[in-house]
């Protein structure tokens, strides 16, 4: 088994992780800076990707050993029998609508005052059939609206502020830094779909391929340990997070001071992911129930 010999030897194991240039991955950058990965015998390379789903083929092909992506992508992959496993927590909702890093916004003068009003309206989300769609649906349902009648339209986060201002959509699900960008321009935060839908939702996770897990179980363990340290460090040092964000994103230092940060617990909230999986089945995105336990890398 070449994987185990590699990790068994003295030199650090080279590991490439696909990440997205957003606030959520700040811990891994911080952790690299702090030397957590080195300590665990990992020679870390970070590859920026445009989105979590785009990294999946790379992980399957073995280009990346790990990738950062939202949990619904992993669930979806699981539903299609794609061999992916969640390794570690990525980013979570803060559980408090007033401090969370994402939410649904409407124009200041919009007649929409409750999530229930979204029934029959057009809502922009960044990816259809993904975590944002199901959590918005759940939010509408919880408020007493008809989740099936919401019209979703796919729009990149960067395009959402203009779409709301131009009245092209009625509402938009945004995350930082666009949440700050819209609300500071007068748009109104209608609610937080993450906290509304599921308690303490794990929004994103680091995942690997089944094959890599099978062949390099100890590297995965080392990686998990390093990530957990990083997450903790990030959670405890928000100022350092705000300082590092402008170094790997195009978010300016000024904006980085204002944005809301996600929560970075050390463990994946398996219940919340299971809830996501159930919501996905409920809203017809997956045809069968996915058992999240099977998607975890329990090595």
């Amino acid at each position: 088994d070449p994987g185990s010999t590699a990790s068994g030897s003295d030199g650090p194991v080279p590991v490439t992780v696909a990440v997205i240039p957003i606030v959520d991955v700040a811990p891994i950058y911080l952790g690299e800076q702090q030397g957590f990965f080195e300590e665990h015998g990992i020679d870390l390379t970070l590859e920026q990707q445009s989105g979590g789903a785009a990294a999946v083929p790379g992980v399957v092909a073995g280009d990346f050993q790990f990738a950062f992506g939202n949990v619904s992508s992993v669930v979806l992959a699981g539903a299609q029998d794609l061999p992916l496993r969640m390794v570690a927590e990525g980013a979570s909702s803060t559980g408090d609508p007033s401090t969370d890093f994402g939410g649904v916004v409407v124009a200041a003068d919009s007649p929409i005052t409750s999530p229930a009003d979204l029934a029959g309206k057009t809502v922009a989300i960044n990816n259809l059939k993904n975590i944002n769609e199901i959590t918005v649906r759940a939010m509408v349902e919880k408020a007493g609206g008809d989740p099936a009648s919401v019209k979703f339209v796919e729009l990149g986060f960067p395009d959402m502020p203009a779409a709301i201002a131009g009245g092209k959509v009625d509402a938009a699900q945004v995350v930082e830094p666009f949440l700050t960008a819209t609300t500071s321009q007068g748009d109104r935060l209608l609610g937080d779909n993450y906290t509304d839908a599921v308690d303490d939702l794990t929004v994103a996770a680091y995942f690997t391929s089944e094959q890599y897990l099978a062949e390099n179980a100890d590297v995965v363990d080392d990686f998990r340990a390093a990530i957990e340290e990083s997450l903790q460090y990030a959670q405890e040092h928000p100022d350092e997070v705000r300082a590092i964000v402008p170094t790997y994103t195009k978010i300016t230092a000024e904006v980085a001071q204002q944005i809301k940060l996600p929560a970075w617990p050390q463990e994946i909230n398996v219940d919340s992911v299971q809830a996501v999986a159930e919501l996905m089945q409920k809203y017809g995105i997956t045809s069968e129930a996915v058992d999240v336990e099977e998607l975890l890398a329990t090595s």
Partner: protein
Amino acid sequence: MHRFLRAGRALVLALALPVVLVAAWWSWSAHSGSYYFPPLSTILSTFGSTWFSDRLGADVLPSVTRLVVGYLLAVVLGVGLGVLLGTNRLLRRTAEPVLEFFRAIPPPVLIPVLFLFAGIGDTAKVVVIVSGAVWPVLLNAVEGVRAVDEVLSDTSRSYGITGWARLRHLVLPAASPQIVAGMRQALSISIILMVISEMFASSNGLGFAIIQFQRSFAIPDMWSGIILLGLLGFAFSLLFQLFERRSLRWYHGLRRSQRGD
């Protein structure tokens, strides 16, 4: 008898390569084992259930409508502008850098700007198609118009055939072989841009469906979509050949007249 033989030969010629390629794909993919390259048999069995359902009306039809509208607009715009620029040197010199500027900008980054000006509905998607498909027509029209035979041009001028008549009887027909080449390019580009335009701010369409399949890891469905795209392109190219044969009858006659058949 002779004619049957000839038709048979043409049929064999037309089918041989596709059959070989499909067979190769079939046997290779049957053992590929790669998640992203499912067996062709799986793809084909998905094909029917995926497309011959309500998707035909919900996704394929809107796509094709946008495609046709966008393509036709691109042709009209490309020929119009191309003739204008081809006949007017000062205008061509003035406009060319700006046009080249737009030509080099990837449609995906233009899309946010389009949203600003054209909204996120069908208009924007048609504009995306036009913004990409217009160039081959335009460029070919410009070059075709510039290359009009001098003697013929002199003939027209001396007989007072100017303005609109010149355009209709001299410039357009003379440039038509090149314009048609451009139109043919534009057709497949339109299809490509139809897909790209549906990647953004969309809720239906063939491209949208393919992207969704890709994102939700429904790989056989995605491949079936790509095959459908190819089939669509093939069908449109057949239609186009009919058009070309009619509109360039003289040209093909002229070029073949002395080949001895």
